[in-house]
């Protein structure tokens, strides 16, 4: 079973206008930058990008281009805006959010992790303690007022929990340090972050891999993402990037 694509266009051939794509990574770390660049080149539009913690703040150049090209309809993230208000005001994404041209849904990070995990495991929704006492327990948090759908809460053993729904993307864009041709993946250090759970959650998972190897060259004990979750992979160079955000 060989899942390796030779060309980027082939790797993302079925990504169409209107797709929902999970973008892995945590700020600058473990972000599938080359798959994002392929989206820019492909010019697909009306995209929903579901994130975990700021991969689009980390991959700021790619995000800026996607927004300038008007390819993004909606972003779901726990940390979608620059921390610096000054930098934010100059950011095309934040400007589009302020004007309501792009939707930003803000979800606590651990809630996102659990919503992907639920989708991966065939669980429709989960009750979580996160966000009780904040707006998160009352309604969906978004800049688009019409989409502030009320949420359900329930008490278990005297403590209040909020119902959060599984989040199942059409695609997941994954960045791995090593992967074999059958799609077994291994990540490097903190670049693992949201990669495994997004790979498991999406209908179609596409991995960019720094080192593609033959089956058996990753010990079975060392695989982080079993190949069953991965549809296609493509070899990419290790590119350097600045490890900073503000």
């Amino acid at each position: 079973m060989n899942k390796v694509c030779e060309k980027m266009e082939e790797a993302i051939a079925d990504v169409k206008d209107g797709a929902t794509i999970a973008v892995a990574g945590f700020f600058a770390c473990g972000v599938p930058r080359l798959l994002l660049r392929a989206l820019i080149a492909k010019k697909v539009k009306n995209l929903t990008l579901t994130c975990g913690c700021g991969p689009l703040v980390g991959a700021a150049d790619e995000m800026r281009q996607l927004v300038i090209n008007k390819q993004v309809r909606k972003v779901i993230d726990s940390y979608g805006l620059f921390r610096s208000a000054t930098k934010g005001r100059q950011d095309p994404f934040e400007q589009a959010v302020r004007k309501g041209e792009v939707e930003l849904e803000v979800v606590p990070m651990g809630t996102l992790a659990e919503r992907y995990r639920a989708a991966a495991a065939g669980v429709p929704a989960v009750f979580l303690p996160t966000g009780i006492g904040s707006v998160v327990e009352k309604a969906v948090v978004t800049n688009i007022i019409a989409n502030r759908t009320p949420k359900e809460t329930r008490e278990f053993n005297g403590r209040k929990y909020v119902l959060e729904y599984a989040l199942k993307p059409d695609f997941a864009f994954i960045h791995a340090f090593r992967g074999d041709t059958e799609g077994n993946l291994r990540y490097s250090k903190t670049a693992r972050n949201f990669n495994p759970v997004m790979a498991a959650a999406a209908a179609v998972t596409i991995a960019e891999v720094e080192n593609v190897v033959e089956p058996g060259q990753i010990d079975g004990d060392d695989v982080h993402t079993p190949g069953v979750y991965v549809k296609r992979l493509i070899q990419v160079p290790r590119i350097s990037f600045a490890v900073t955000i503000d």
Partner: protein
Amino acid sequence: MKLEGIPREMIALRVSKEIKDGDYVNLGIGIPTLISNWTEGKDIILQAEIGMLKNGPLADGDMVNQDLINASCQPVMELPGTVYFDIVDSFTMIRGKRMDVVVMGAMQVNARGDYAGWANPERGLDIGNIGGSMDLCAGAKKLFLAMEHTTREGNAKIVNEITFPPTTAGKVNMIFTDLAVMEVTPKGLVLKEVAPGLTAADVQSVTEPKLIVSPDLKEIEF
């Protein structure tokens, strides 16, 4: 009037004294991050929600690995025994009450232990960055705030009623500022320590809720 208190590094040092050997600790962005400068020699383990236990000191120069950052996106180093895991494990630890101490920054806090820190309406948006803050509040065994006592203009951040979007309700245990150390109790905020040269009345003058002055009130001890 803006009172003269202790610098941010010293707030961090004071918080570090409340962290005990054997504690697993998660530090938020801002003053809390500085606490890691004061933990040498303590037998504690720092968790970073990106997916790391026992994260080491900040890395620079040749030591920077772009695959190794903390939850504030700063390059860090490994220690003997550092471990990595994915985000689901990370928040299983956090929500599963494995963090003995969580320290966060805050824009506002009240006497009931509610605090606001994720969205600043002065930015002109009613949404912001939640990150891992609400999960950390939901799961912390002890929740501390490390913050400036007032805004840059000298206005109260320790308020009767929170006006910014709250992060959590009733979870804060202790508040450490440049001016004072306070404990959140069912009766209200107990003032336990004041910065050198200040009186309880000075601290009260920049604090909205009525402070209960501890009979053992003392200068902030490092």
